[in-house]
């Protein structure tokens, strides 16, 4: 039996030469089966042990590590985004508060300035109306003085005219009354 492999090969080679005797087809040469089964057993057991003890746990760990890293990174990114969202919200709230305060300050200032301007305007108006009243009074007195002068001139002129026409000096009270009447008419 020790020669079995060699015999099988020899038979195959022999077939090519004379073509008559049919050599066993290599996959059906029974004397090779034991060797192949032993080799296959050794190879498969080795592969099984390597796979189950070393290879598969190693790859499993690599894949798990990657998964964990990705999840960790995603969680970190989410945390950072939440932080930035919160910061943005705080900023917007501050901005809104500042805007409200600025508006309040603006309104207050405007009102104060308006009030000040009003007071000043009223004081000026009062001064102006006083001056106006003074001026009107001066005008009225000047006019009444002028009017009394006009009356005197008219009386004198009427007296002189009557004197020239009649030669007699008219009574001063009569002349005054006549002038008065004509000025009224």
């Amino acid at each position, binding site marked *: *039996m*020790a020669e*079995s*492999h*060699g015999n*099988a*090969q020899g038979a*195959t080679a022999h077939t*090519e030469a004379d073509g008559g005797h049919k050599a066993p*087809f*290599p*996959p*059906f*040469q029974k*004397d*090779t*089966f*034991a*060797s*192949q*089964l*032993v*080799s*296959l*057993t*050794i*190879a*498969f057991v*080795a*592969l*099984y042990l*390597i*796979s*189950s003890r*070393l*290879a*598969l746990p*190693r*790859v*499993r*760990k*690599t*894949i798990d*590590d*990657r998964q964990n*890293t990705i999840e960790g990174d995603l969680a970190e990114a989410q945390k950072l985004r939440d932080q930035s969202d919160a910061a943005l919200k705080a900023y917007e709230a501050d901005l809104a508060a500042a805007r409200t305060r600025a508006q309040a300050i603006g309104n207050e200032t405007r009102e104060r300035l308006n009030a000040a301007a009003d007071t000043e305007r009223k004081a000026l108006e009062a001064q102006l109306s006083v001056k106006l009243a003074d001026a009107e009074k001066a005008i009225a007195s000047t006019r009444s003085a002028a009017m009394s002068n006009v009356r005197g001139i008219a009386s004198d002129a009427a007296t002189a005219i009557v004197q020239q026409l009649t030669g007699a000096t008219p009574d001063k009270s009569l002349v005054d009354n006549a002038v008065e009447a004509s000025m009224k008419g």
Partner: protein
Amino acid sequence: MDPIHQFNIEKIFTIGHIGGQEIAFTNSSAYMLLAVVLTSLLMLATGRKLVPGRMQSIAEISYEFVADTIRTTAGKDGMKFFPFVFSIFMLVTVSNLVGIIPYTFTISSHIIVTAALAFLVFFTVLIYGFYRNGLRFFKLFVPSGIPVVILPLVVAIEVISFLSRPVSHSVRLFANMLAGHITLKVFASFVTMLGAMGIVGVFGAVLPLALVVALTALELLVAFLQAYVFTILTCIYINDAIHPGH
């Protein structure tokens, strides 16, 4: 020139004798160990980076691929067979792919290898099925909702189909690899035969050469596909052991 020569088992050295039968380290043994070594290198010598490189990607894709196959066919409980299924998948896939390279040997082109794997799966299913379910494992052969009249017939069919599983399981892989490699070799020998016939033959050899290229691509697909089919059938059979009720 002989398309069968590539399947020869050649002794490299003798390991020992068991019951008068010589146990030799052969070219087949060497390719089995090569598949183990390549798988180990792929799974253990590649990086463990956060962003994987090419080889690390292949290792992780192999892992996820087998894990997903088990999860979809056998459910979460099937994951205790993950190292088992993964070993079968990697052994068959890697050795099939290595076998595409010219002058190499394809271990799954030998019926004894595929049969051994198929019976390993068969007995794993049988033993685990009875261990987990006890006699309820027999429900596998009794589909629910079948009229009593035809029940014996259905049970007989189910038992026969269960018992013939290792045959179809092993022959499918074996025959595909064997036929593919013979076809490749036949067309490749046409190229050399025509090429030896002078100037006309050289032009005539272009067609089989193109065919060899196309067939090699096809065999690459078949090599992976048959490994996948073998694996998914393994998962389906394991699913029967876990959930025997239809």
